[in-house]
């Protein structure tokens, strides 16, 4: 996804000198081509995320379309108040790009797990929150973000759904990945892959899942959730993220307001992992893999029936 993002940004930067990329001293080898091709559109702010974000805001208010770039939480948490007061309050055209959503950097430890980012970014007025599920989506969504002014958080995952769906991709409109009438599986980011596998397991049991890819967490595609929930009456939310405040909470808010369907949230159960491992290992360890989704859906469907 990271490479897809940079390729898309590079292609657009050629024709638009207002596009600026600011890195917080990360992106070794990945950003070289951009930096060499567009020296006037590239800034290494150094290991200084607060200033990186303030610079981005000042440049954006003078007409630039700025992307700040770092890994995991560094583009958003170290400089959260800069995002809130400077970028979001002034509605500046700044996209904070985080390379490494969830457990993408699973071996690096807790500091590098982005597992509260969606909740925190979602709470900021004016902020769009986008988590592509595949490199193809990352490319398309990067282009859409460039076209749409205003603050944005772009969460790039190391994993991928391995699906190549790009058709009719729009910010704020989810993608229906699979049709089913027994249970809704809604996920954000590359963990969609686990939903797809879970749906196959469920299908073998005669349970057909509706799968929604919520690549945009904010603005949330409420209609797709309500429509699917009205049909299935059972919803499982899946996110590589704390179950508090992220996709599960967003879906719960909608379902509660509409008064339809039972919900179970799959995600990190409000804790900091103290062990490391690759993304798949950690998904399994912390109960957000395909098997967990399958089991959760089974219980929920049986309860709903």
């Amino acid at each position, binding site marked *: 996804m990271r490479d897809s993002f940079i390729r898309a940004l590079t292609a657009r930067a050629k024709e638009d000198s207002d596009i600026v990329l600011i890195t917080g001293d990360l992106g070794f080898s990945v950003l070289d081509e951009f930096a060499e091709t567009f020296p006037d559109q590239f800034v290494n702010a*150094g290991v*200084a995320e*607060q200033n990186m974000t*303030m610079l981005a805001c*000042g*440049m954006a208010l*003078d007409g630039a379309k700025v992307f700040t770039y770092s890994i995991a939480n560094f583009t958003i948490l170290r400089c959260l108040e*800069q995002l809130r007061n*400077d970028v979001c*309050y002034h509605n500046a055209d700044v996209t904070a790009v985080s390379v490494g959503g969830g457990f993408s950097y699973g071996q690096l430890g807790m500091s590098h797990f982005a597992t509260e980012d969606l909740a925190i970014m979602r709470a900021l007025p004016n902020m769009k929150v986008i988590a592509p599920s595949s490199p193809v989506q990352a490319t398309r969504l990067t282009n859409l973000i460039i076209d749409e002014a205003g603050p944005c958080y772009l969460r790039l995952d190391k994993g991928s759904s391995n699906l190549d769906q790009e058709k009719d991709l729009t910010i704020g409109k989810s993608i229906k990945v699979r049709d089913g009438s027994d249970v809704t599986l809604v996920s954000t980011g590359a963990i969609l892959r686990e939903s797809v596998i879970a749906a196959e397991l469920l299908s073998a049991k005669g349970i057909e899942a509706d799968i929604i890819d919520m690549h945009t967490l904010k603005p949330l595609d409420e209609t797709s959730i309500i429509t699917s929930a009205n049909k299935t009456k059972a919803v499982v939310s899946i996110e590589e993220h704390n179950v508090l405040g992220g996709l599960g909470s967003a879906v719960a808010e909608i379902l509660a307001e509409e008064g339809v369907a039972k919900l179970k949230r799959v995600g990190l159960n409000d804790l900091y992992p103290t062990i490391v491992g690759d993304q798949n290992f950690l998904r399994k360890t912390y109960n957000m893999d395909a098997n967990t989704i399958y089991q959760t859906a089974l219980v929920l469907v049986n309860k709903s029936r």
Partner: protein
Amino acid sequence: MISQQAQSIELAKKVRKHVVQMTHRGNSSHVGSALSIVDILSVLYSETLNIDPKTPEMNNRDIFILSKGHAGAAVYATLAESGYFDVAILNDHYQNGSTLSGHVSHKGNPGVDFSTGSLGHGLGVGAGFAYNFLRKRNARRAFVVLSDGECDEGSNWEAIMFAGHHNLNNLTAIVDYNKIQSLASTRETLDLEPFADKWLAFNWAVHECNGHSHDDLSNTLKSTKLEQHKPSVIIAHTTKGKGVSFMENSVLWHYRSPQGDEFKAAMTELNEQETD
């Protein structure tokens, strides 16, 4: 025709009265902080900034950011007296439903380029403007007024390091060095000295001046324009609460609001200064 300096001195007298009246009506804090920067703002708005109050969004305007947003009353009063909006609107400051918040905000207030209130934000954003002006070969400049206590914030030093490294000669920081912060003197809290040396070490051109002398401020601000390769800082030596004798150099008037006899006494002093 009156000289620019006479103009800025007149402006400062009016702004001081507004500041005391606004903090009185609002029963609000920071009158000392606001009085401290009145002369700096008056010189900036009278002669330094390339701006047009009739066209607040003028494309080639200079950018001004009050990073010490708690002194917003002084900026609102300066803008109103400069013609950005009706002076009568200052009566709304701090009142229910007003856009004139205690900490300076751009929403609904013509002439405010950037909203602040949390310290340590203005300089980095000013550096962003300045960097983009240079990138676009644009002659615009960015001016940022900081408080001394605000220089405790690490984010400022990130911005100072960046601006020095990138030779942002179109960026001018003015530090309101009244040497008193929220609870005590800067020396007792976190000593800034040797202050000039710190900026010098970060590759800035350092100027010092009397932050209440319009002559000194004017000349110093003019000299910053001549810098070819460095951002400029003006360490403006000021007096917190300047203009009202019993508010001067007092920690108390960081938070205390002028009420009752104190308000009357303050206004009497300022009225006498106006007729001087």
